[in-house]
């Protein structure tokens, strides 16, 4: 109970409380925000088997503020807490107090999404997590239009999610259903429509082609610490939703959508890979690489195979870790060089070997270097997809691995290697605090890459068997 | 029966007169006659009290009000200078359509529908005797017993109207030239400047 409160309520409360601090005192704000994030992270470690429930609605369907950890949510919550902690540490933007407050609000809202056991609460936090990002984009982004684009796309998704949730509640009688096993299936009349609403929201949030066009500008405009959290964790909300809502609650509709989703996933992963090859904005490269990687996870989820699902969850964590590292490091670079355009960068490794090292590990994990966590997720996922009998999808999904090598190396080399670009003002290497912000993520990538077994404490067969169709 | 048709012709004639006059004063006069003829028609329908009210309230109060306003507006300026007509062209098809709809309905009614309706009086209505019907006493009794609440509400509506009028017309409103007039003035000024001459 206390743990869950610390995870969901504490960041939100602390976020609002932060506004009470003096505006100019950056150190105090950062200290408090870091402390709160650290407490949240510790609470996350103690999250195992916690549960709390407060009754909310009785009519027209029952709903409750029900939060609990189900294994999958545990790791994502931990990832979120870690990413937020690192991002708060690394944050160095104007109006720091307000920014950190938004970061904590974002953390609390997303915790709510990943720990909610009630669909209505899930939907509530789903929409809530738009707000901090939207405000962050408005306040710190480059173009206000990006903020609106983000809001409109994701709010459209939130709307269908809410409609579907309401429909589910009415059809089923309760929304307090996430993570419960042995539920009666909804059947073929309402199921497809409800699933369609959920699926739209999930696809927008992930995002998956062709609903992705909000993502590159959002990722390149949002301040790096926030985009680190958004790309690392918020993009997983949709995939998480497919697993805990789609697979467990609407298996018939989920199965019926298999081919559409496989196609969308495959298109995404090729499309993102190809576009990332030729972008010149460093953050956009990572953004499109995300499209590619998340498409792969979608394919894995929709292959309905326990192994693929296990791989997908490993890759969810993997993608969170390396995307956070990449965006944080790109933030450091942008802060120093005042650009993130590849043609205007080069040879930084000479003056900034530590930044180069951290960036290299992030990029290598992203391109699936064996020994790092990206590879573990990718291989297990693809093996599962193949074992599920999807020969061609598995084969096609191999192409982006080559593309990833090409664009990630291009990203790394164009920034870090080659001749130094003259006339660049500051060439300060990683500071201690920045190093502390990146180090846990890097260590986690290496540790879970060598030993992904530690990560697979959850039982994926639960969801896969839940999605088995009745004979 | 002849009276009805005579009155009908007069009513229609005065109505057309009202809406076709350029000068509002003539319209008021036409309306005056219209109301008078209508009051006559009311009497034929056993509604003596209402006929009286019609004369007193309409001709005595409302039309006088119209005349006052006309007098007020016509002092010194020409308020009714017609500008370009901005009515949408849709007025003709819409009007035709409305007429067609009406015509259809009338045609339909003329085959006896109204007669069917008329032969089934609404339940619960206060059906009086033919000879007592329409008497002032009958009317007054109904007004102050069954229809007391609507009557009081009417009083309230009138009060609101009075307050509204006082608020609207009571305060001094600044003169703001309309956009059309402003544009006119501006064009004149521009032309004057182009002519290089003085503004007249």
């Amino acid at each position: 109970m206390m743990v869950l409160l610390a995870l969901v309520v504490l960041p939100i409360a602390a976020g609002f409380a932060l506004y009470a601090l003096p505006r100019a005192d950056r150190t105090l704000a950062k200290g408090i925000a870091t402390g709160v994030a650290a407490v949240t992270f510790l609470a996350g470690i103690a999250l195992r088997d916690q549960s709390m429930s407060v009754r909310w609605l009785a009519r027209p369907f029952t709903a409750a503020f029900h939060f609990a950890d189900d294994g999958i949510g545990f790791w994502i919550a931990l990832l979120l807490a870690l990413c937020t902690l690192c991002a708060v540490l690394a944050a160095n933007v104007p109006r720091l107090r307000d920014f950190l407050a938004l970061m904590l609000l974002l953390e609390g809202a997303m915790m709510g999404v990943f720990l909610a056991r009630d669909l209505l609460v899930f939907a509530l936090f789903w929409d809530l997590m738009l707000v901090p990002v939207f405000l962050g984009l408005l306040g710190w982004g480059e173009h206000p239009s990006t903020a609106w684009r983000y809001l409109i796309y994701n709010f459209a998704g939130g709307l269908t999610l809410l409609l579907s949730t309401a429909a589910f509640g009415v059809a089923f009688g309760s929304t307090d259903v996430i993570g419960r096993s042995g539920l009666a299936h909804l059947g073929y009349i309402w199921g497809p429509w409800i699933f369609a609403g959920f699926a739209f929201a999930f696809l927008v949030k992930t995002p998956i082609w062709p609903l992705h066009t909000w993502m590159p500008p959002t990722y390149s405009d949002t301040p790096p610490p926030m985009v680190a959290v958004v790309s690392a964790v918020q993009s997983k909300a949709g995939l998480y939703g497919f697993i805990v809502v789609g697979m467990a609650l609407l298996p018939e509709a989920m199965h019926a959508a298999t081919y559409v989703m496989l196609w969308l996933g495959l298109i995404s992963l090729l499309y993102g890979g190809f576009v990332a090859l030729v972008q010149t904005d460093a953050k956009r490269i990572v953004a499109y690489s995300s499209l590619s990687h998340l498409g792969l996870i979608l394919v894995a989820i929709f292959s309905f195979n326990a192994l693929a699902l296990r791989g997908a969850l490993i890759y969810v964590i993997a993608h969170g870790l390396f995307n956070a590292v990449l965006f944080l490091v790109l933030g450091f670079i942008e802060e120093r060089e005042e650009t993130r355009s590849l043609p205007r960068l080069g040879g930084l490794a000479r003056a900034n070997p530590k930044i180069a090292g951290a960036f290299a590990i992030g990029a290598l994990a992203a391109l699936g270097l064996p020994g790092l966590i990206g590879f573990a997720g990718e291989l297990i996922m693809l093996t599962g997809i193949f074992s599920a009998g999807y020969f061609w999808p598995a084969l096609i999904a191999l192409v982006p691995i080559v593309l990833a090598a090409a664009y990630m190396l291009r990203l790394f080399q164009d920034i870090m290697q080659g001749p130094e670009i003259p006339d660049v003002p500051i060439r300060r290497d990683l500071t201690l605090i920045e190093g502390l912000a990146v180090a846990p993520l890097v260590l986690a990538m290496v540790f879970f890459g060598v030993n992904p077994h530690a990560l697979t404490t959850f039982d994926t067969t639960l969801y896969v068997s839940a999605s088995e169709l009745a004979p | 029966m002849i009276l009805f048709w005579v009155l009908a012709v007069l009513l229609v004639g005065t109505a057309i007169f009202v809406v076709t006059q350029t000068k509002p004063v003539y319209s008021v006069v036409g309306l005056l006659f219209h109301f008078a003829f209508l009051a006559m028609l009311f009497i034929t329908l056993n509604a003596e009290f209402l006929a009286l009210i019609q004369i007193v309230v309409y001709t005595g109060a409302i039309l006088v009000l119209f005349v006052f306003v006309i007098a007020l507006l016509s002092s010194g300026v020409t308020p009714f200078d017609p500008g370009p007509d901005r009515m949408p062209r849709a007025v003709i098809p819409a009007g035709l359509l409305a007429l067609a709809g009406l015509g259809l309905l009338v045609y339909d009614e003329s085959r006896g529908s109204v007669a069917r309706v008329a032969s089934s009086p609404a339940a619960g209505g206060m059906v009086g005797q033919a000879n007592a019907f329409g008497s002032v006493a009958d009317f007054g009794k109904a007004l102050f017993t069954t229809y007391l609440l609507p009557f009081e509400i009417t009083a309230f509506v009138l009060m609101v109207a009075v307050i509204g009028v006082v608020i609207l017309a009571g305060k001094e409103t600044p003169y703001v030239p309309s956009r059309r007039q402003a544009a006119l003035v501006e064009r004149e000024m521009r032309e004057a400047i182009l002519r290089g001459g003085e503004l007249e």
Partner: protein
Amino acid sequence: MNSALLPVSLMSYVGLSAVIFFIGVGGVLLRRNPLIILMSIELMWNSANLLFLAFARVWLNNAGHIFAFLVITVAAAEAAIGLAIVVVVFRRTHHVDVDDVRLLKG
């Protein structure tokens, strides 16, 4: 049949009322002088009253009389407000044309 109480058929009253009503409608639609528009509205009110009375007579139900009475009072209020608006508009623009009052334009 109660319509025997009437000197002519009920349909004639309905028709007369409709004709006057549409003359009023035409006046509202086609005239730009607000005063004449207001008068046209009065015509419409009265055509409705005529119907009320005719039907009250047919059904021997004086609810129609009550309604006509209410209509007259409301018409009086309406006329007062309408004229006040005309005065206000005139004070602002020194010109009275309903087409010039376009604050509702979207």
